[in-house]
Every structure is written in structure tokens, then in C-alpha cells.
């Protein structure tokens, strides 16, 4: 409905509540476990399914068009940098898929600009963004302009 939570697997940790982009994973006040309070606002984005440490959350396709008896399960591993999917059809056939999710140890390669050299006034006055122009073409070429590309902007009907 689209996501739902198995009673015996959920311990109410709230990881799903923390991550849900649609604010629909809530903790049930009586059972102290998670539930989807608004299935028609669920995108089946699987953010909660991936975040659950106990595989307590699963998806049952939208009742409008999805018959019962299927499953699409996922295991996302940030440390290994992989995501594994298992697609089980209503008739029992199974397909497995494995993909990378990152090529670097998590968060290690992102610059904090506070540790980088300050931009110069010339750079501030230019049209360049950070790490440009080198990061655009990875050579010595500059930023494309109308002049460099032999163009002008002209009013009228052109196709």
C-alpha cells in the first residue's frame, strides 16, 4: 500500500521516518513501530526500504493497477558501494541485479571550500564558476562566449 512495514521485523528505530521525502512514514502511537500513513502520496521511491536496518519495509504495488503476489527487494550497502535488487514476478520467476552506487569511500572526495585558495578579484569579476575553466574541458581552453563561438542574439522569428 505501496510501502508497508512487517510487525515482527520493525523495532521502531525511525530511520524510515527520518528519510522519507514525502513525510508519510510515521511511528504508530499504539505499536511504536513505523507505518505508511498516506499510501497515495508514496512514490515507491524505496528511500525508506533502503534505509531500514532490519529489512522490515516492503512494497506492495499500487492497488489501482498492480495485482498481488510480487516483490521487488533491495539491499543497499554504502560500505561496499553496491546495491542489489531481486525482482520476483507474480508467476514466481526471479531476476537479480547488482550495481555500483559510488566509486569512492563515502563522502571522502568532496571539497570544503574553506580549505581551498580564495578566488581572485579577476575571477569574481569574470563569468567563471569554481574550478573553471579547467574543469569544463580539462584542457587550457577558456569559457565559451558568443564571440568565441561566432554568435549573436537577434530578435525575430528564427528556427
Amino acid at each position, binding site marked *: 500500500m505501496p510501502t508497508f512495514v512487517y510487525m515482527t521485523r520493525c523495532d521502531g528505530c525511525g530511520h524510515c521516518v527520518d528519510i522519507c521525502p514525502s513525510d508519510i512514514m510515521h511511528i504508530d502511537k499504539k505499536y511504536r513501530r513505523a507505518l505508511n500513513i498516506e499510501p497515495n502520496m508514496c512514490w515507491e521511491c524505496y528511500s525508506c526500504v533502503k534505509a531500514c536496518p532490519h529489512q522490515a519495509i516492503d512494497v506492495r504495488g499500487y492497488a489501482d493497477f498492480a495485482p498481488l503476489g510480487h516483490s521487488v527487494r533491495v539491499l543497499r550497502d554504502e560500505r561496499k558501494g553496491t546495491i542489489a535488487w531481486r*525482482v520476483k514476478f507474480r508467476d514466481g520467476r526471479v531476476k537479480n541485479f547488482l550495481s555500483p552506487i559510488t566509486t569512492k569511500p563515502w563522502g571522502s572526495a568532496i571539497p570544503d571550500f574553506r580549505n581551498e585558495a580564495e578566488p581572485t578579484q579577476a575571477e569574481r569579476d569574470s563569468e567563471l564558476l569554481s574550478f573553471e575553466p579547467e574543469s*569544463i574541458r580539462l584542457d587550457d581552453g577558456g569559457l565559451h562566449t558568443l564571440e568565441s563561438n561566432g554568435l549573436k542574439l537577434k530578435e525575430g522569428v528564427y528556427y
Partner: protein
Amino acid sequence: MGYKTITEDNIDILVVGAGLGGTGAAYEARHWGRDKKIVIAEKANIDRSGAVAQGLYAINCYMGTRWGENNPEDHVRYARMDLMGMVREDLAFDMARHVDSAVHKFEEWGLPLMKDPKRADLPEGDIGKGAYMREGRWQIMIHGESYKPIVAEAAKVNADKTFNRIMVTHLLMDDAQDNRIAGAVGFNVRTGNYHVFKSKTVICGAGGASNIFKPRSVGEGAGRVWYAPWSSGSAYALMIEAGAKMMQMENRIVLARFKDGYGPVGAYFLHLHTYTQNAYGDEYESKWFPALEKMVGKAYLDTENQHFSHKPIPTCLRNHAFISEVAAGRGPIHMVTVEAFQDPHLEEVGWENFLGMTVGQAVLWAATDIDPKYINPELTTSEPYVMGSHATGCGAWCSGPEDISGDIPEYYWGYNRMMTVDGLFGAGDAVGGTPHAFSSGSFTEGRLSAKAACKYIDDGKADGINVSQKQIDDRKEEIYKPLETYQVGSNEIVGGTVSPSYILPFPGLQRLQKLMDEYAGGVTVQYMTNDKLLNMGLAKLAILEEDLEKVGAEDIHQLLRAWELKHRHRTSECVVQHTLFREETRWPGYYYRGDKMKLDDDNWHVLTTSHRDRTTGEYKMEKQPLYHLVDEK
């Protein structure tokens, strides 16, 4: 109400909404503003928010200038052609000349970009040899399940503070200087606390609008909209109510996608080389083109010579053929997958494409025993969406960069991506006229905005910001009113959801969707509308606005839905105003003006803008000149 007021003062750059546009803004702002206070206010959790929350399997905007693949102007001409001429070409060129640098950074940060073994002779990238795997001329293929969390790290590292779970309801205006931005207010959707952000500049990175037209699936399946259900048109409502001039809001988009799951078709068409046919196995598109050519003119669709010109056919025109064929009784349209899927590699790409960005489509195929290796799946055309980063360009009217737009007074007023409200900038869906920006282009627009916002502050333009306590108190009362309305009203009924004194957010949303569908060209009327219907729609929207003063919210979660509904309503009103103003059918296949069924370049080869008066609510519509990039010689 027992909710606390939490004030964040002296902010230099406030990023409202941190999808791909907002994250680009927060990241880049630190480069140009080392000592500036940069704060993010995000409705969900920045690690999984916005349209890319679920991941992406492709980056749809990458020039490849390093390998001589495309120049920025090539992309502008492509976007112009696809949008039937209606693009801010200065902004599009600017985005395209910077976008590759964003993609190269994503790769450095750990986003797995696929490499093409056939192009291994090209210079080495950060991982592995060779050039990126192309899906099509503009698209590269990625393993992007973690695209959003990776990019979110870059924003979090460089921002001073990230506030998750804040529904921003209004922008704050300067009380001392007319038409100048001063921050934003909203509430925490978990604690209920009132949050006030006083800021010198605001970069609006909020989302476009799903769910303003009645969706094809109205039960649980309403969640499986093409654009995320949390895209509540907040970008537009916030900007419209701040008095920003909007552009091209009539240019809603209809998507031809796999039926019900709305799984993407890009990789299928471009990489897997699948194709469509009608229920009887026939090619259908070309037979609709001669009549369509008469509607739009030979310049936009040349039935005889299109093949030789190598120009792709505009997306809306292909939609038109699809819609016409179904209406003629030869539906459904199928995607022919059984040929491509015999290749195990292509089969894997076909499935991983969904698992990487639209899991719901894989769930649907599993549930209905559709293995595209043996069965050709159905396609459909979606309900309309209003947004500005995919293949359409709704959004705010923004200034271009000095070196491109400087000589055009209508396109330039000092700061790149600044709107017609001083200190208010935008990125992604918020910026109008830059279709085909997609994820990487939205991130790039965020970066451009951030640099310009820093310059605006350094030039002293944001000095002496003044926000009165009255403005803050008035907004607080307004924000929590639905809770009070519910509390009072619910006492007069035994129980249930039906009250004579309030409407709840969901029934209110259904009313909005029904009227937009029937009066403004949704699916149940085959995307058809006219001047009479649009005027009736506006009258109904005005009455709905009165009723939304009486929207009730049982708890804080419903208060979130109440404000999302108000944002969707304001967006819808602007959409109808624009649709009424443009007296032609510019994009057959997206919508039709039954009273003006032809494209009219003599009168409407222009961009449309609207300005809603903050006090009277009156709209002023204008035509703006269209400048095209042409060769100097």
C-alpha cells in the same frame, strides 16, 4: 498554539529547497562567499529530497566539449526546436557552457559514470579509461542510485546549517525597501515549530508541480505520478506571492511513458533502440504528420524533409500523433521491446534503468508478469505537469549573464538568475526558459545563482534589510490558521471528514485537480481547452481560494498538506492565466486551444510573462521579445 518561534538571523544566502538546484547553490556559495552565512531550508531530508531522491540512471544534459562532441549553441538549438521556439536562449547558452564542469565534479565525488569501451582511445577520465557512455546526443549513462546523497554531501559540507523538514510557506519582504527580498518563513513538519529565516538573499530551489491536474490513477496509484508527489509547485507559489514576474507558465508538459508506472523511455528509445507501434502492429506517427504540418507550419514540422534535415521531431508533436492514434481507436500504443531484450546486456540496461530511477515500474511489471523480453509493454500519455527543468521551461523571469545578455534590456538587470524581485535568485524548476537543464543543468543554475548572489551582497545591494515584527507575527498566524479552523469546526460534527465549516487538504486537492483537468486541458478532455473554459476555470479557482481560507488541518502533517495545496492552487491560477493569454496552439500534444487551433508566429513568436500584484491579486500579462542565437555572419 504552543509552537516555539525559532529565528535564524543574519543569513547572507538562504537556499529554499535543496534538490539538485539548491545543492548546487549551497556548494558554490561557499567558494565565492568564504565568510558568508549560508543556510539551507529543506522540506524533507536533503539526502533524499527533490526529483532525484530516488536516483537517476542518466545525466540528460552533458555537452562533452572536451571530446568535441557538442558546443553550447548546439544544445540551445536543440532545446529551441523541441520547445517550438520558446526558450530564453541567453540563459540556455549560459547553462550549457558550464554544465560539463558540474558533471566532472560529480565523477570526482564518486558518482559512477559509465564508460564506453568503444571510445577507450579517448583521454582518461577520473575512473577507468575513455569517454562516457552516451545514451543519446545529450545524455550519458550513470549508476545513479546515490546521485542525490552524493551531491547532498557537497551542499552540507559547505553550508553553515542545514534545516531539514522545514516547509517554507512564504518569502519575507523588506519592509523598508519596496520589492526587496528579506528571507523566508515556514514550519517544521515534525515539531510544528515556527521558523523565521532573515536573509540578505534567497535562492529559490523549490520544486515544480505534480498533482495539479487530475492524475490518471486516483487511488493509491496517485502517488505514482511522473514527477515526485512532493513537488508541490512551491517554487512558483513562493515566487508569485513575492511579486516575481513569471514566464511561460502555459507550457505544461505531457509525458509519453510506460503505462501506470510512468517508467522513463529515454534509454529505451535512444540506447536500446526500441520503437512504438499501435495495437495492430503498425507504425502510426507519420500518418498524422501531414495534417499536423498544416497546424504548426513547415518550419516546425517538415513531413517530406524532416528525415533529411536530421532534426529530431519536437516531443509535443510526437505526443500529438500518439494521442490522435489512440483517439482513432487503434490504442494502446506499445513499446516494441522484444527485439532489443534478446540481447542480455540490453535487457539488463532496460531493468536497471527502472531500478535506478523508477522502481515502481519494475514493481508493476513484476506484479503483472510483464517480461519485456516476451511482451511489448503498453505506453500512455500522462496528466500534465508544470515545471522548468525537464523538457519544458515554466518558471520565473530572470536576468541573464552580463557577457551574453548585457545588450538586451529585457533580458538583463545586473545579476545572473536574479528575478524581478531584488535579492531573489533561482535554480532548477524555479528558473523559466531553460528547458532540458535536467539534473546537471539545475545544479549548474544553482551555482550561477550563488555566485551572483554573493556579488549582489558584496556590491552592498542587501545592506540595511528590515523585517518588521508585524510581518513575522502576521505570517505565523496565517500559517497555523488551518489547525485552529479544524479544532473549532470539528466540535460541531459527530465525526468523520465532512464538515460545513472546513475542507480537508485531500478533498481540496481533488477539487483543484478536477477543475484543472476539465477546464485547463487535462487527460479526461484529451488536453483540450478554450477561452471560455479557461475563464470558467479562473472563476472556480477564485472560489476555491476563498474556501482554502477555510482549509482544516487535524495535525502538523495535514498542515503540511494544506500549505502544499495552497501552493498548488497559486501555481494553477498562474498556469490558467498564461494559457488564456497565449491565443494559439503552440504545442499540440501538450495542450490545445480549441478556439485557436493553429500555431501563430505572426502574433505569438514571443515569450509570455505575468505579474501578480501582491496587494490586489490582479495579473498583468505581457509579451516579451524572443531573441535567438544566430551565426554572426
